[in-house]
Every structure is written in structure tokens, then in C-alpha cells.
């Protein structure tokens, strides 16, 4: 391995090292502050290391550290750093071991980093499993709470099945294409229609899509999401909603950009149907939810449906749109779950809509963050979500994906109902029990950064627009 390759791998190495240091720390003497600091430092160093390399640097044919990978790595690191801050606050009063939580977070991040740079089935698979297995444990982390455990099981079983789908699909693709290199697979798929192995290849591709669809909770593979979101602790749900989706989507986009969809229009159709279903079903299901996390689970199905627009349109503009949207989505996700986190503690999850009654008057800062997050999710101007949706519609219209654009508009309309319901509730003058201590510093910091991002990117999207303009694959 050359030094440039090592250089390029630095971000991953940093996170891995942080993992080892934290493990060693636990072995010597448990100290949650130490583990937490190591985790944050790991993220910070890894983030800094992203600047150590430039251009596209292939590593052993499995990974490629290119601007695209670096950009999404940054998103993942930032998101999980936020999650770590939230988790630190959330688990303050947890009486059992807390150190492993951060180690698992580091591992999950590492999986995500591998995913966004993966260019080979092996690294794809490896990254995905790293991510998933850490998540199983994270979701079920709070042993004292039955719901948390139920969430773990409900994620684990389907995820394992999805892994099987993924692997079988990969095997079929490998069988048909003769290579496990993503680009190579894409090239051979372009010819797949004319080959006798075409059916095998397409079947394989579809099975991979099913697996990815499961991870992204796209309809009709979305049903697990609500229960898992609801059951898990708020910061973990935040990670599940942001990091795992961003990472998997980044890979999905990279994989798909190598496939010429014109050659396999069918897959395009299937994805279109999945996208429209996700947008509508997600929004419809979210309509009647009282539990905020549950509602956000369904709404995230809709959001991932929206992201099919850039996926299907592809190209430089598609990458930029997806990148912007994912940043906006992650920031809003951290903001929303962050507020739930700040309201809750490990003893009591305050994720019911009723907990928000009169929040605007009781806790203006948390309320502001929450409203900003909701409005961003709803795509209201001067929030990052608006710019994101604008980008999506831009590529949709630019590629004449009219059905998808129309579904997006429709779904946005439906989604207003549940987002605004939560906004309105916060303005209620009805007296609610005054609860919750002051927002802990760590969570407060994460929330402040999130709201600055959500609003700042809405008002002044220029820098980010610049950064994503060159994410070509």
C-alpha cells in the first residue's frame, strides 16, 4: 500500500483507531467521559483527515476516496458527532455500562465510511454489515426498556433477511457480469438486455435493490421502520435515520450512476414505482401518528422516496441535488430527534406529540429548533429543506421526471398536515406540565449547530452549493 493510499485512508483509520483506544480504555478502567472524548476526537481527527487527500484515490480496488466519498464522509461524521453529543446527554442517568455505546457508534460510523467509498461488492457488503451489526446492538442498547429491545429484534430479523437478499443478488450479478467491481457490473448491465444471462443479471440487480430498499425503508420494504424508530432511544434513532440512510443512499447512488438506465428501462420503472409508493405511503401513514418518532419514521420513507428523483436523473446535477438534500435531511433529523432527546432521558422517552404542547412558550429554544426542523422537512423557504427540495425538483424537471415531481408535490402537500400539526401544538396555550430540566450543554450545542445549519443553508446556500457542484462520479 502506497503512502498516498494510506493518506487517503486516514479518515477510516482515525475512526478505527478511536475505536481501539476506546476499547482499550474500557479494558483498563471504565470512564464514560474518556470514551466520549475519544469518540468525539476520533470524529474530529477523521474529519480533518478528509482534507489530507485530494482527487480520487483508489485503495486496493475496494475503496475509492474521491470528493464524493469525502463529502459524504463529512456528512456522516458530522451526523454521528451530533448523535454522540445527544447520546452523552441522554444517557447521563443510565445506570448500566455506557462506554460501549460510543464504541458501537464509532463502529457504525466506520461502516458508513466504508460504504460511501465502496466500489466493490466486497467492501459494499463489509461496510453494510459493519453498519448493521452495530445498529442491532445500539437499538437494543437500553436493556431496561422493553421497547428498545423490541426495536432491536424488529430491526435485526428483517435486516438479516435483507442481507441475504443482498448477497444472493450480488452473487447473481457476479455470475452474470463476471466481476464484483461496481463499475464493471454497471457496464455489463448495460448490455444485459441482449444477453441470455440478462434475466439473471436483472434479477440480481432487483434483489440488491430490495436489500437497499429495506435499509432505506422505501415502500413496500418500509414496514419495520416505524416500530424500530419508536422503540429505540431518541439519539440512536437519530443515527439510524441519518447516518445509515445517508451512507446506504450514497452507495446506492454511486452504484446506480454506473448503470445506464436507458439500457434497462425496467429497473427505472421499478424504482419509479417504488419512489412514488414511498412518497405517498410514507406520507399517508405518517398522517395519523401521535408519536413523533413514529411519524418521522414514515416521513423518512417519503423523503427517501423524494431522493429517487436525483437517483433516476443521475449525473452531476443529480449528485449535487442528492448531496444537498441529504445534508438538509440529516441536519433536520438531528435537530428533530435532538429536541426529543433533550426533552427525554433514558428513564422516560418523551416522544409523544402531546409532550410538545405549548413548547413554544415553555422552552423557546427547543421549540425553535424543532419548528425549524419540521419546516425544513416540509420544505419551507429559508430552511435547508426548501433548498434541498428545490434541487430535487430542479433535477426532476430537468430530466422530465414529471410523474415523480407530481408525486413529490402531492406528498409534500400531505406531509404538511403532520408537520404543521406538530408546529401548531407547540403554540397551544393549553397548560402542560412544566417538565424537564435545562437542556444539557452537549445536546444544546448539537442542537445549536443543527439549527444554524438548517436555517443557514436555507438563507445562504452558496458555500454548500459550491461544494457539491463538483461531486461528479
Amino acid at each position, binding site marked *: 500500500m502506497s503512502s498516498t493510499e494510506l493518506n487517503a485512508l486516514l479518515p477510516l483509520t482515525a475512526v478505527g483507531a478511536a475505536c481501539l483506544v476506546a476499547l482499550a480504555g474500557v479494558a483498563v478502567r471504565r470512564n464514560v467521559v474518556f470514551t466520549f472524548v475519544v469518540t468525539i476526537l476520533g470524529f474530529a481527527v477523521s474529519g480533518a483527515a478528509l482534507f489530507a487527500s485530494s482527487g480520487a484515490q483508489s485503495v486496493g480496488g475496494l475503496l475509492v476516496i474521491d470528493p464524493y466519498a469525502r463529502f459524504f464522509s463529512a456528512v456522516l461524521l458530522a451526523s454521528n458527532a451530533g448523535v454522540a453529543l445527544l447520546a452523552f446527554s441522554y444517557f447521563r442517568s443510565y445506570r448500566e455500562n455506557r462506554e460501549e455505546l460510543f464504541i458501537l457508534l464509532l463502529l457504525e460510523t466506520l461502516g458508513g465510511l466504508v460504504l460511501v467509498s465502496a466500489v466493490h461488492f466486497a467492501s459494499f457488503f463489509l461496510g453494510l454489515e459493519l453498519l448493521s451489526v452495530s445498529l442491532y446492538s445500539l437499538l437494543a442498547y437500553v436493556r431496561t426498556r422493553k421497547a428498545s429491545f423490541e426495536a432491536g429484534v424488529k430491526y435485526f*430479523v428483517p435486516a438479516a433477511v435483507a442481507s441475504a437478499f443482498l448477497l444472493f443478488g450480488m452473487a447473481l450479478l457476479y455470475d452474470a457480469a463476471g466481476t464484483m467491481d461496481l463499475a464493471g457490473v454497471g457496464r455489463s448491465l448495460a448490455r444485459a438486455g441482449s444477453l441470455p444471462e440478462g434475466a439473471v443479471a436483472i434479477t440480481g440487480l432487483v434483489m440488491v435493490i430490495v436489500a437497499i430498499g429495506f435499509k432505506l425503508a422505501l415502500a413496500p420494504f418500509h414496514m419495520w421502520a416505524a416500530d424500530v424508530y419508536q422503540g429505540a432511544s431518541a439519539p440512536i434513532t437519530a443515527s439510524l435515520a441519518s447516518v445509515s440512510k445517508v451512507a446506504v443512499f450514497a452507495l446506492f447512488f454511486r452504484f446506480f450512476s454506473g448503470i445506464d438506465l436507458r439500457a434497462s428501462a425496467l429497473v427505472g420503472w*421499478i424504482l419509479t414505482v417504488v419512489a412514488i409508493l414511498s412518497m405517498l405511503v410514507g406520507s399517508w401513514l405518517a398522517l395519523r401518528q401521535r408519536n413523533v418518532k413514529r411519524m418521522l419514521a414514515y416521513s423518512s420513507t417519503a423523503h427517501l422516496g423524494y431522493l429517487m428523483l436525483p437517483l433516476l436523473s443521475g449525473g452531476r446535477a443529480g449528485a449535487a441535488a442528492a448531496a444537498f438534500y441529504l445534508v438538509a435531511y440529516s441536519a433536520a433529523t438531528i435537530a428533530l430527534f435532538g429536541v426529543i432527546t433533550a426533552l427525554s432521558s433514558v428513564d422516560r422517552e418523551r416522544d409523544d406529540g402531546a409532550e410538545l404542547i405549548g413548547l413554544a412558550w415553555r422552552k423557546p429554544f427547543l421549540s425553535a429548533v424543532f419548528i425549524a426542523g419540521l419546516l425544513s422537512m416540509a420544505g419551507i423557504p429559508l430552511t435547508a429543506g426548501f433548498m434541498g427540495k428545490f434541487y430535487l425538483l430542479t433535477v426532476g424537471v430537468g430530466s422530465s421526471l414529471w410523474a415523480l415531481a407530481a408525486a413529490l408535490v402531492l406528498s409534500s402537500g400531505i406531509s404538511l398536515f403532520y408537520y404543521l400539526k406538530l408546529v401548531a401544538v407547540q403554540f397551544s396555550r393549553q397548560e402542560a406540565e412544566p417538565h424537564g430540566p435545562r437542556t444539557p450543554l452537549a445536546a444544546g450545542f448539537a442542537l445549536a449547530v443543527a439549527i444554524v445549519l438548517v436555517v443557514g443553508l436555507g438563507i445562504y446556500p452558496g458555500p454548500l452549493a459550491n461544494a457539491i457542484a463538483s461531486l461528479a462520479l
Partner: protein
Amino acid sequence: MYAIVWLIPALPLAGFLLLVFLGRRMPRAVAAVVGVGSVGLAALATVLVGASFLSAPPAGGAIEERLFGWVSLPSLSFAFGFRVDALTLTMMAVITIVGFLIHLYSSEFMSRDGEFWLFFAYMNLFVSSMLVLVMADNLALLYLGWEGVGLCSYFLIGFWYREPEYCVAARKAFIVTRIGDVSMLLGLALLVSSFATLDIQELLRRAAAGWAPGSALPVVATLLLLGGAVGKSAQLPLQVWLPDAMAGPTPVSALIHAATMVTAGVYLIARLSALYALAPAVQSLVAIVGLATLLLAGLAAIAQVDLKRILAYSTISQIGYMFLGLGVGFYSAAMFHFMVHAFFKALLFLAAGVVIMAQGEEHNIFRMGGLRTALPAVFWTFLIGASSLAALPLVTAGFYSKEWILWGAWQAGRGGPLLWLLGGCLGVLLTSLYSFRAVFVTFFGDQKIRESHLPGARMKIPLVILAALSILGGFIQIPSDIAPVSLFESFIGGVFPKAPGAAEGGSTQILLQVVASALSLIGVLAAYVLYRRGVGAHERLADSDAYRGVRRFLFSGLGFDWVYKWAFVKTFDCAAKLLKGEVVGRAADAIGSANAAIGRALGALQSGRIRWYLVGIALGAVAAVGAAVWL
């Protein structure tokens, strides 16, 4: 003196503004001085302007004064500008002088009312608007005045706003006239789109040059304008509001619903006579409308028992005469009748006001009686007014004005004799019948209610002056076969196209006059027989069912109200009730609930069972793979 022209409408307007903003705190005397004085000054100014108009006629026969711009657009402009010619001056004189007398009368009549100041405010605004209407040099300004008088009429009809039924009457008046106004506005729109101007003189010039007589556009335009005229002047088919308008205080009825505002339609057609000349068919229609209205209203008047309603129907009928005059091209005659009618009808209303006040707000003439001795001044003036209305020959002004119109009708082409027969013979007979019915029933026989609230000087003086005018006003224009006096015609005639037919007709004219005069006397006689001497005859008739049916039909104003109620009012109410539930909004809500229902249905799939979720994934996978392999 022409420089003071703008003061004439401005004075009452100033009076209005003073009263409306400060009147509530003014002592009654001050409010009265402001209210009456402003109109008095306007009358004085009118007289001064009129005098100089007569002594030194302005160039072109009209005083023109442009106050300030209003709307100035490339495609259309109009200003606050006045143009005073003989026609306008006649109108102005009637409005200000009769108006002043009525204001004077009101200062006593209304003196006990709590909102005395407000009454004068509205009255002043009315006078101002009416003056704007007649003085406007363009149709937009005319329309402004036109709407303004309608508004004042609304407020004055509903002046006693605590009584809901008065409010209803006021609303009805406004809405019905508004329908006509809209028609008129559309007429203006048509004129603008054809000639790009609303300046009346310019418009008439361009129309004469640009429109062929009898072609479609002038017909439509004049029809639309006619719609406005029949609305304001309570002619068929929009006459229904006027009888109800009697809910207002009696001076209001005298000024607005007899002397001035209701003749605005007459003025409009006279003002645009050159336009109507381009649409002979419509002009004939004007005559027919007038004729039909005068007969219908005359019939209805016979069956009324409310003194004011009798007068109201009589007003409708007399304006019918004016329309008849306009329709046959005898514009001067119509205007002459307008002037004379203003005198005697104002007189009748004011006298009726005294009667009603003296009888303790009793309106039903059959509960009155014998007031001849109790209220002698009123009796004599009322009698003069009624005679003039009935056109008793030679001594009354009404005779001269009506004869002029009937002479025109006789000469109006093929249908002329028929117009004369119906209008002249039947109409005159009906008129004298109902007017003297009122006289005999009210003033003769036994007194049933003791008189109270006897009129003071401020009420009597106007009565006397108007009575004098009702007699003397006729002598400025006498048919040539009786005496060659033609002051009115020579004053105003220049404004109109020359009347068709001969001004004098020798023996034919004499014959017609004799017949009409005889009929008016027969009417008086019949009234005497039926309602005074032969009370028995009337009551014997009243026993028969047929008579009662006819009477009810006539009493209701020939059923128009009933038809309109079912055709329009109920329909509108129904529509309002139906739509109140927001059908459209419900549809939007239904979409919302449909979404919620879908959400619920999908939610049923979220059973919480892991296996169930796996089935979802598996089915999705099978569907996708199936689609991929099979398609």
C-alpha cells in the same frame, strides 16, 4: 354670474359634511339653519345663474365649467366638469327651489326626531348628488350622481331604521334600482367601447356621425340606458320599489320619490335624446313602457287605501306620461310635465304629510274623513294639487302639460291615436278618479280622528307657494289654439331634436282637448258618485267576490311583487342557504378525509408482527423480480 355655478352643488355638499361630522353636537336650530340654508343658498345661486342665463345666454347655449381632472387615461378620460344648458337649468331650478321648500317644511316636520341632524345631512347630500347628476358634462360624473341619489334615497327611506320593515323597503329600493344602474353602466361601457369618450356632447356628436340610425349598436346602447332609466324612474318592469319607498318620512317622498330623483330617468333620456333618435325602435319602446306604466299604476292607485301609496302610484303613473312624451319625441313636453309634476306632486305629498301627522300617523284614508273643516289650508292646497294632477281643464298647470304630451302622442305615426286613446282617455279618467277618490274620502264625510299637531308657518308656506306654482306654472306654455304662449318651449326646445309632427293642429287639437277634459271631469264625477254621495254603490260592489278579487289584485300592484319574490328573492335565498354549507369547501375537506382514510387503511397493515413485515418485503421482492423477469 357663471363663476358661481360650482357653488350650487358644493353648498349642499358642504352642508352635508358639516352636519355629518358636527351635527350630532349641534343644537337643532343650528342644524336646521345649516341644512335648510345650504339648499336655500343653492337655490339663490341657481336663480342668479338662471337670470344671467336668460338675460345674456352663453355662447353655444351652455355654461361649461371644468373643476378638476378625475380620470385621465390614454383611452378614456373624464373630469369633474359641469355643463349647464336650458334643460339642466330647468332641472336645477326645480331641484333647488322645490328642494328648498321641502327642506323648509322638514325643519318643522322633523323637529321632534332624535336624529334631526342626520336627516338634513342625507337631504343635503341628496340635493348635491342630484345637482351633480343633472349638471355633469360626462356620463361618468352623471353616473356618480346617479348612484349618489340612489344611496341617499336608501338612507332616507330607511331613515327610521329602528323599524325592520322600513329597512326592508329601503333595501328593496336600493337593490331594484341598482339592477337598473348596472344596465346603465353596461350602456356606458358600450358607448366607451364604441367612441372612447364619456363626454356627453362629444358622445352625441360621434354617435350621430358614426352610427347609422336603426342599426344594432345604438339600439343595444339605448336599451341598456333605458334599463337604468326605468329603474330609477320606477317604470315597468322595475316599478315595484317605489310604493314601498313610502316608508320614508313624507318630505323625503315629496322630494326624492316624487319631484326629483325618480325623474332622473326622464332626464337621462332627454339628455341623450340625440342617441335615442338613432334608435327609433327603442324610442317607441320608451313610449310603450310609459303608456303601460301609466295605466298599470293608475289602476293600482285606485285600489290603495294608504294615502301615500296612492300618491306613489300616481307618481309612477305621471312619470309614465313623461316617458310617453319622450317616446313620441316631445321632449319639451315631457320636461314641462316634469316641472309641473314636481310642483303639484310635492304639494300633494307635503299636504298628505300634514294630514297624516294631524291624524296621529294614520295612513289609511278610510279611517280619516271630514278634514275639510279641521285643516282648511291643507284641504285647499291638496285640492289644487289633486286638480292639477287630474288635469282639470284650463285652470291647472297639469292640464297644459298633459295636453302637450297627448298631442304629441296623437301625432306619433301609425299607433298615435291608440296611444292617445289609452293614455289620454283612459289614463286621464283613471287619474282624476283616484285623485278625487283621495280628496273625497279624506276631506269629506265625518271626521273619525280628532286632529292634532296642526302645521305651523314653516309647513304652510311651502304648501301655499307650491299650490300657486301648480296653478301658475302651466301658463308659461299654452297650446296655440287656446293662447299663443310658448315660453317654456322657446327656452328649452333648442336642446332637443325638433319634435316630429305639427306644433299646432287646429280643430283636431281642439277636439282632442275637449274629449280629454271631459274625461277628467267625468273622473271627478265618478269619484264623487262612488266615494262621496253613493257610498252605498261602492259598498254594494264590494260585496261581490269578483270585485274583491280584482281589488286585491290591483291593491298588490298587479302582482309584480309576488312574481319577483318567487322568481328572484326566494331563488337567491335558496341559493344562499344551499351554498352556505360550502359545497366547494366540503370537496376539499373530502380529499383530506380520503387521505386520512388511506392512512388508516395502511396503518392496519402495521400490525407490529415481524413476520408480517417480512411478508411485505418478500412480496415486494417477488413483485419486483417478477416484473423484472416477465416484462
